[in-house]
């Protein structure tokens, strides 16, 4: 029955505050905004001033007519980062260049509590954006010291003007950089969801206010892996839900320089572990998809740089060979005896040659093993790491004399291998925990 009048009762949805009193007051003072730029900070005193200045110059330049707010969500800096954010003179000449701001520029630095890590900061940013009704939310890294105002503006415009829900940057990154993206994350998600997103795990991105609000109300924040994998969760959420995704050519200088990178094995465990978990919890969202298509890419493409990271191929090859040997008891139930034998054969020759098809099959089978629960997911991912090093070493040595376009063409071979092996290995009607291999 529906009553015309009820008595006031204890409302549902009561939960601890996400936003502090001080932040709510600051947000109320700032008022409704069109664009909220969020910067998760933690001891970034060395870089934050430059990043904030770049954002502020965007606010007085390309976004001068929008209502804007910069929110730095600080995880407990002890080096004075919040004070630097608050203390910067927004009308200082180096910020304003030759322009005057049309309206008051709002800049907030707030501490956040609870679960530390990037997800805690993003949650605060999304909550603030939801509260003030921001139409676009832009996430910027605190160490993107060479950030240009064009980079922020292009991301923002793709949301505000073109109506995209999630926009990731594309930079002129060298084809030899970030092999975890080129050899695994990008081809895996491309094959899974059929969308050719070049930088799926980029930590700088823009999204619509609605996307942020939807993500805010989801349960992803309660997942343990969201602490370090929130970007993967958001990307797969966008891909799975069918919202409009784009990528924007951003000036290469906007690519962050992470100053405190954890060891490669730890990064691999985090990134791949989260990607596998994302896919495992969304089997209905992708298993039936075959092939892939381009997604809108805005802006003019730029020539890639030719930077060759100082990877130690000998060390990679050595770790690969040792891993194939030492982890055989783990790898056999994970990727199967035949492929383990193929990796063993690859390990026995110099230079290394790990074919894209073999690599793609290993990844899908490792995913399947984790999805089936045959082995703990962390063990599966850990056993995959030496194979990854082998694949990277093979790629680097095979393209040692290659041009950038040729090296990029190899990335395409890998991506196609992931798509083709998915078609062979993944049951399109897979129900949860029943991925066939």
């Amino acid at each position, binding site marked *: 029955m529906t009553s015309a009048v009820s008595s006031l009762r204890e*409302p549902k949805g009561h939960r601890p505050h996400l936003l502090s009193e001080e932040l*709510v007051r600051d947000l109320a003072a700032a008022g409704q905004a069109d664009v909220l730029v969020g910067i998760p900070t933690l001891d970034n005193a060395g870089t934050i001033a430059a990043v904030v200045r770049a954002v502020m110059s965007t606010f007085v330049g390309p976004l001068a007519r929008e209502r804007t707010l910069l929110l730095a969500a600080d995880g407990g800096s002890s080096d004075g980062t919040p004070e630097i954010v608050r203390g910067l003179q927004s009308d200082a000449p180096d910020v304003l260049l030759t322009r005057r701001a049309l309206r008051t520029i709002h800049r907030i630095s707030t501490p956040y509590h609870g679960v530390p890590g990037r997800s805690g900061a993003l949650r605060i940013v999304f909550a603030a954006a939801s*509260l003030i009704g921001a139409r676009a939310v832009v996430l910027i890294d605190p160490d993107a010291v060479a950030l240009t105002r064009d980079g922020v503006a292009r991301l923002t415009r793709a949301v505000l003007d073109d109506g995209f829900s999630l926009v990731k940057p594309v930079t002129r990154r060298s084809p030899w950089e970030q092999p975890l993206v080129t050899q695994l994350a990008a081809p895996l998600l491309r094959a899974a969801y059929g969308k050719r997103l070049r930088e799926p795990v980029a930590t700088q991105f823009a999204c619509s206010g609605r996307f942020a609000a939807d993500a805010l109300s989801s349960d992803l924040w309660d997942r343990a892996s969201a602490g370090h994998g929130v970007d993967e969760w958001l990307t797969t959420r966008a891909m799975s839900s069918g919202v409009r995704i784009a990528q924007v050519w951003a000036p290469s200088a906007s690519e962050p320089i992470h100053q405190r990178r954890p060891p490669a094995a730890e990064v691999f465990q985090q990134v791949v572990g989260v990607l596998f978990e994302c896919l495992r919890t969304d089997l209905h969202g992708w298993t039936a998809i075959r092939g892939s298509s381009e997604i809108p890419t805005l802006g003019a493409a730029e020539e890639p740089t030719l930077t060759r990271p100082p990877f130690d191929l000998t060390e990679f090859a050595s770790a690969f060979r040792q891993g194939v040997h030492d982890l055989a008891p783990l790898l056999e139930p994970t990727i199967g005896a035949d492929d383990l034998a193929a990796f063993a054969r690859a390990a026995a020759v110099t230079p290394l040659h790990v074919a894209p098809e073999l690599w793609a099959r290993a990844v899908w089978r490792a995913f399947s093993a984790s999805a089936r629960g045959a082995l703990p997911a962390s063990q599966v991912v850990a056993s995959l790491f030496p194979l990854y090093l082998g694949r990277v070493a093979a790629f680097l040595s095979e393209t040692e004399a290659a041009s950038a376009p040729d090296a990029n063409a190899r990335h395409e071979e890998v991506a196609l291998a992931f798509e083709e092996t998915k078609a062979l290995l993944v049951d399109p009607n897979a129900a949860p925990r029943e991925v066939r291999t």
Partner: protein
Amino acid sequence: MAPGKADPLWYKDAVFYELHVRSYADSNGDGIGDFRGLEGKLDYIAELGVDCIWLLPMYPSPLRDDGYDVADYSSIHPDYGTLDDFRSFLDAAHARGLRVLTELVINHTSDQHPWFIEARSSRDSAKRSYYVWSDTDARYEGARIIFCDTEKSNWAWDPISKEFYWHRFYAHQPDLNYDDPRVFEEMWRIMKFWLDHGVDGFRVDAVPYLFEREGTSCENLPETHTVLRALRRRLDDEYPGMGKLLLAEANMWPEDVRPYFADGNEFHMAFHFPVMPRIFMAIQLEDRKPLVEILARTPDIPSECQWGIFLRNHDELTLEMVTREERDYLWDEYARNPAARLNLGIRRRLAALVEGDRRRIELMNVLLMSFTGSPFVYYGDEIGMGDNIALGDRNGVRTPMQWTRERNGGFSGADPERLYQPVIVDPVYGYEAVNVEAQVRSPSSLLSWMKRITGVRRSSKVFGRGEFAFLHPSNHRVLAYIRTYGEENVLVVCNLSSTAQAVELALSPYEGTIPVEMFGGSVFPRVSQQPYVLTMGPYGYYWFILRWL
């Protein structure tokens, strides 16, 4: 294809828009609105934020009661077009996501209907018992006379068959006799005819009066509910899951209307008539008491049912459901000119009733859009159209829609003297001052504001489906309530007075929430255990969504 079939409870969230084809837009220059003209205005209606159009009677009729005297239920009045024109309109409406309700005049026909002509032709006619006959006018004396200004009895003498016939409304509208089961079958055949054409439901006219029994008021009788439930059962059986709607017109106290919902198996919706005059009364008294009282005496209804609420409609502002003191007060305050009074009501439009006061028009619509029930907007009220009480009966509130400042208000290209009735031309409400064209171009117009409020209402199901709980601040000039649906809570605060007010609200159950004003998105201070203090301008209002952040 009707829109949104997936949700059979669509009417709980809907904003309804009542209009008369005759009054809306004339496509062929004959001075009378028609379906082709209406079809041309569907984009306007959709942009208004409306979900469903309620069409006043469109059937062939002598038009002695504006079409409620139906002479043929299965056709279109030739003034309004053809059945093909109607189908084209219906398809176009559905293509825009708009549903369409038509009128089902179930209680009576015109005396020009073939059934009545045949019935009166002879006391032995096969259709004689389609109507209620008597050789005396002394039966059913417990039944009140509804149109007391024009009718002296519910019986009229038929000089042809030399007997009295029963009529609860005008004498030219003989009541159908549902004691003859053939009448039920005829009415179902008519419903099916229109449902098969694609209409989304019916506003069923004058439902309390279907049966007559000696010693009763001849209203709300058990036999009436039996018939209505049987019609509903047919509807559900033959159109399952299609969201077809039955809406009852029963101008009664809510406890008397309640049985029309039965156990959710009679009407989906019914108008809540007594709310409307109390909105006018509360604002004139500057006191929330009338509204609090009427909702307090409103009974629970089945969860799949819904009240329909309105500020004004095509009839007079009915004052039947108020006390004599309240009626006298409302007449004195809103109808000082005796010519504005009709039967037990006031025949004026919304804007004219509040002397064109934009603040009061907004406040009343704020109440309409946030109260418990689905709101009905009467055509023209969205731009603040006026009326012409010189036109007699209720015709003064049924004048042509004012589209532009051109001839006839853009309603028709006919010579003005050929219009079905004149457009409003007075300096305040005339079409040169009040028209759609001008208001579309002004972001601060009433029309633009109406689009905003329907947009805000549509942004949440809380208004259509949420629970409703009053707050009780000591300042009685302020009406405040919480709408709750799931985890969503909306606080509505209205200053009913013409002066600025401060109010302290006890919001402690919502401690920790952050009120966000829904029209502008402004963030207000977080709610605490302390009374929440708001200051409000004259006739000011707030809709706050209470966010847990």
